């Protein structure tokens, strides 16, 4: 029997190694796999390259991982935050590197990485400071830049329902980057609010097929970032 379930978030992230590239799903707090991130903080891996749209809020989840000094480099599109100084402070003091990527280019680079496409051309960013260092090429009279597919060692995501084969459905806009990040990592780890037997999810509605998922862990009552922050929680 195929069963990708593991018993705890600690077990799920146990093999994430120092220096790994880790994609983390979520756009702001929607879809952020907070319990997996907190397990990663406790696990201790450091020198990580993290891919996320943002840099976290308050001092929980991704912001806590950054604050703990575990992230050497962020690849993201919008590192500025209205309610967290964790990333800005560390960036200004040179403790963390930043690769800034336009949001759509970031999403497509991740999909390309997962789809075996080493590079593609996009019009986004042409003529702006973000074209710096990129090859430019004209197709049919318009300029494009060449960007590379992006892969990861691990992806951490949050699903609504998963089955033990790793099929996933999401909750509303918590979907965001998770389906493409699931494709792009050697080891994709999903925390799901409920984990069910194969056959319980309608095959027509599966968003992330299990082939992209290595481990499934049930987290029945996931914390919501804004709730933790409003309650003054910091992690650890």
């Amino acid at each position: 029997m195929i069963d990708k379930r593991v018993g705890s978030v600690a077990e799920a992230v146990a093999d994430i190694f120092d220096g790994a590239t880790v994609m983390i799903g979520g756009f702001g707090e929607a879809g952020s796999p907070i319990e997996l991130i907190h397990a990663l903080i406790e696990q201790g891996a450091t020198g990580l390259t993290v891919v996320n749209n943002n840099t976290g809020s308050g001092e929980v989840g991704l912001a806590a991982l950054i604050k703990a000094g575990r992230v050497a480099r962020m690849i993201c599109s919008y590192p500025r935050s209205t309610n967290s100084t964790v990333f800005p402070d560390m960036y200004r003091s040179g403790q963390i590197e930043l690769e800034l990527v336009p949001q759509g280019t970031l999403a497509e680079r991740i999909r390309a990485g997962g789809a075996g496409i080493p590079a593609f051309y996009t019009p986004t960013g042409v003529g702006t400071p973000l074209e710096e260092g990129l090859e430019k090429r004209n197709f049919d009279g318009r300029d494009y830049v060449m960007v590379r597919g992006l892969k990861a060692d691990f992806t951490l995501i949050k699903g609504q329902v998963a089955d033990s084969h790793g099929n996933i459905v999401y909750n509303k806009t918590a979907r965001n980057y998770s389906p493409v990040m699931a494709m792009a990592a050697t080891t994709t780890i999903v925390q799901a609010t409920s984990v069910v037997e194969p056959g319980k999810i309608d095959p027509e509605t599966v968003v992330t097929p299990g082939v992209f998922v290595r481990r499934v862990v049930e987290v029945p009552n996931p914390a919501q970032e804004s709730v933790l922050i409003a309650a003054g929680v910091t992690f650890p």
Partner: protein
Amino acid sequence: MSEQRQGWTREQMAERCAFDIPNGSYVNLGIGIPELVADYVPEGRELIYHTENGLLGMGPSPAEGEGDPELINAGKKKVTLNPGAAFFHHADSFAMIRGGHIDVCVLGALQVAQNGDLANWSTGAPGAIPSVGGAMDLVAGVRTIYVITQHTTKDGTPKLVESCTFPLTGVGVVKRIYTDLAVVDAVGGHFQLVELSPGVDFDYVRERTAAPLLPIVQGD
């Protein structure tokens, strides 16, 4: 009348912009004044709102204390669903944008140049945290880019300029600008006045525009 009170309010700028968006358009509204456009869609028209974090058919904000923290817009505020909504992932969402499937995008601006260049993501200030989000994708992919902005900064510096001094978001992308003072097209490399806000005259706008401004073309 003091200068501060001349021209359109934020709501009137949004209303004037909404007037130009055809029925049935797929529309992406930026953060700030552009968001107000949804409140001023003329009767009889229906627009479908796209938010780049994976939703078409976005509805208005829920009542205070209501809503789902995982049903949000690109500004990370809670929203609702209109009938006919659809969720999709980030790469598909930007495929819609980059692929030219979104009809209209309304954005704010730091500067707009007479050739349509837009700067709206960074002042390039030292120590600033560079954050681009989806702005470059939107201007590169959406068919019609409108800008809503005050005509000048609070200290009176023009935002409509000969060429942008701030880092660009996109080259030659802006079609029309809705300010508190006027509606201005960026066309053929020049600013073309389309409409003056009530009580504002051409010279008043021209003095606050840091590039040549062509007067309104009289209809034929």
